[in-house]
């Protein structure tokens, strides 16, 4: 039996499209201060370990971990960086607490996406330097090719993908943190500029800045610290092949395997019945559908119809991305996963304001590390 670990504190620095007035250090500090207050802990006295999640190139300086301890109150404490999505950081914190070595761990991730003036050139450096980078193409074409393959294999339509963008941007209107909330129609999505066929402008999420910190605690500490611990029931992460030439174009195998790992841990046999709502990656509109299928929340090829029927809307039978997702909130780079977890925690605590779902007990958050990667993580949280 694995030990129980809970999220006992959350804090964030507001998500915005640009943040010229605040440095990443201040952003980390702001989110951390709020999270520590929420959890009722003092970083130097109470927190045993810290984990930060950031990639060097997205950060803009090499060896990101250099710049972390002071902003989090973690000077002369065990702290390390995971160059990966925030949910990986939660996994690291979860494991550290599970060993018994630590009782309270803080996990941080932030986005200063507005500093990346030419993200496509930056992402091109993530391509295989021998086989792919020399071709000199814009890496977003990978998403276009993948979407095309997904539509072809499953019979999903571009219209169904467009409805994901419509839904998420609408959901975002009720989220004060969301940057890209708006009321649009499927026709507007379909009619927007063709970027990387068949991906249109409005099928793609836009970047946003923001920082998030979460405090994890062992069962004993969690019960002492808060009346509303949100328990980590399952967590999983997985990397499929990094090669463009060797991957399944139409299927998100990483999400499938990460989900399976988390379900196994949480002892969930029928995800759709046992989970009340999900926050899953929608970096591109089709990704939400692909991930719904990979996570076994519906059968392959059925996600499009589910969206069409309205089942995944906020008031539907299975709400997906109530926060607004990356399409509505903005894409927070490596902090995207934590934004999803943040929403699940707020919903489970009953603190989601106008977008609060009723009677939710178990939620799932999932992330994908973006093109050109084939890696992602999933986490299942519950009130009990």
């Amino acid at each position: 039996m694995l030990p129980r670990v809970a999220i006992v504190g959350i804090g964030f620095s507001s998500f915005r499209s640009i943040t010229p007035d605040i440095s990443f250090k201040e952003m980390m500090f702001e989110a951390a201060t709020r999270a520590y207050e929420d959890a009722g802990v003092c970083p130097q006295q109470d927190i045993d370990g810290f984990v930060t999640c950031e990639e060097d190139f997205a950060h803009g300086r090499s060896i990101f971990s250099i710049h972390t301890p002071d902003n989090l109150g973690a000077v002369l404490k065990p702290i390390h960086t995971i160059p990966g999505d925030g949910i990986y950081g939660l996994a690291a914190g979860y494991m550290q607490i599970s060993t018994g070595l630590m009782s309270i761990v803080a996990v941080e991730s932030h986005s200063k996406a507005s500093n990346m003036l030419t993200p496509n050139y930056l992402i091109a450096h993530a391509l295989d330097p021998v086989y792919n980078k020399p071709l000199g193409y814009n890496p977003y074409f990978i998403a276009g090719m993948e979407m095309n393959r997904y539509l072809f294999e499953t019979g999903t339509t571009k219209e169904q993908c467009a409805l994901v963008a419509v839904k998420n941007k609408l959901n975002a209107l009720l989220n004060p943190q969301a940057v890209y909330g708006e009321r649009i129609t499927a026709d507007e999505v379909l009619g927007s500029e063709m970027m990387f066929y068949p991906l249109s402008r409005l099928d793609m999420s836009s970047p946003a800045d923001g920082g998030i910190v979460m405090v994890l605690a062992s069962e004993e500490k969690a019960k002492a610290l808060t009346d509303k611990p949100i328990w980590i029931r399952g967590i999983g992460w997985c990397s499929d092949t990094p090669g463009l030439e060797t991957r399944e174009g139409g299927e998100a195998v990483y999400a499938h395997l990460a989900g399976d790992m988390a379900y196994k841990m949480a002892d969930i046999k029928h995800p759709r019945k046992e989970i009340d709502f999900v926050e899953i990656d929608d970096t591109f509109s089709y990704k939400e559908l692909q991930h719904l299928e990979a996570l076994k929340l519906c059968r392959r090829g059925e996600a499009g119809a589910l969206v069409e029927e309205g089942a995944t809307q906020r008031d539907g039978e299975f709400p997906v991305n109530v926060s607004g997702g990356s399409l509505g909130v903005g894409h927070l780079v490596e902090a995207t996963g934590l934004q999803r977890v943040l929403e699940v925690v707020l919903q489970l605590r009953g603190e989601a304001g106008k977008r609060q779902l009723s009677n939710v007990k178990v939620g799932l958050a999932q992330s994908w590390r973006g093109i050109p990667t084939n890696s992602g993580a999933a986490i299942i949280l519950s009130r009990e």
Partner: protein
Amino acid sequence: MRKVAIVGAGMTKFVRRSLETGKELSWQAAKMALDSCQLTLDDVDCVVMGTAPDAFDMIHMKAEYLSDGAGAWRKPYMRGFVGGGTGVFVADQGWYHVASGLFDTCLVVAEEKMSCCLPHPQGAFITCWDQFTESPLGTSLLWFFAWEMNRYMNAHGITEREIALVAVKNKKNAMNHPCAQLAAEITVDDVLNSEIMAWPVKRLDVSPTSDGAVAIVLAAEHVAKRISDKPVWIEGVGWCLDTMYIGQRDLYYPRYVEYAARMAYNMAGIKEPSKEINIAEPYDPFDYKELHHMEGLLLCGKGEAARLTADGVTQRTGNLPTCPSGGALGVGNAIAATGLMKVAELFWQLRGEAGKRQVPGKPKKGVAQAWGDEMQVGTVIVLGV
């Protein structure tokens, strides 16, 4: 707390410029480590990757690119990163993967390919500094080391000659390491007369830049006992970061290494490290760093490491063999891979499999340590049989 053992290890040669890609280096090391304990990728539950700045080879999300080389295909795969301290940290990270109870086996791979960074990886290091307070100074990494070495010498009245003994010892130790890049029989005068890089740092005080990879296989107790009759137990882990502002640290003493070491010793139940530790593999990217780190690891008092070296205590046949592998100065310094090389060296030494490098007297406990970020992180692991 679940017991975790190292059951296999492998490493590539450390070379100035490898023809293999980072993926290939990773796989060579991973394959050797798996073969050494007769496991295959099917037996591996998860993979941990250590590799230092992406700026070395200009590959964004470098670990994603290296993943299939490291054997992570369709497996839980996580990269840990604390700059130069990464090599030992990933062993700590692999430990928490297995000790948490989530996984029974873990393949830990550390890879570095510095030769892609032309004309010299110093170009990558200067992208580390704070862009407001440090970068404008136009410093290279060597200057930071020069400040620290000077401060260390001044604080304790240690001479360049005493420090040079470390380079002589480590390069000589490396003569017996089949993967070594810069093994040599040199004299103290050779070090003192070598070109001054940034006073008091001279060329032979410095480890080379290298390409290479190292891998180890970790297993939970019940698995380790099944697959290995000589498991080497991870008895303690520790890591710690000091403030990011170099001006707020007294460079004469690495207190962050002390904190990390105390964390690891506490876990291992070690009260008197100088008596209980049989072998030490402190990080030695510069010769004075070995002394600096021996003090941080509480293997001797502050300012005493130079005397121990002069007395021959740290020789392979001495009372406290230090860097019997040859260390970063002799084997080479493929940043992240070097830290894990030190862990692998302890593994071989404690199993009595270090060949010509074998420390006499059947050592029982060893400590390996890496250091990095901006002179601010200590990562420590204590192994025992």
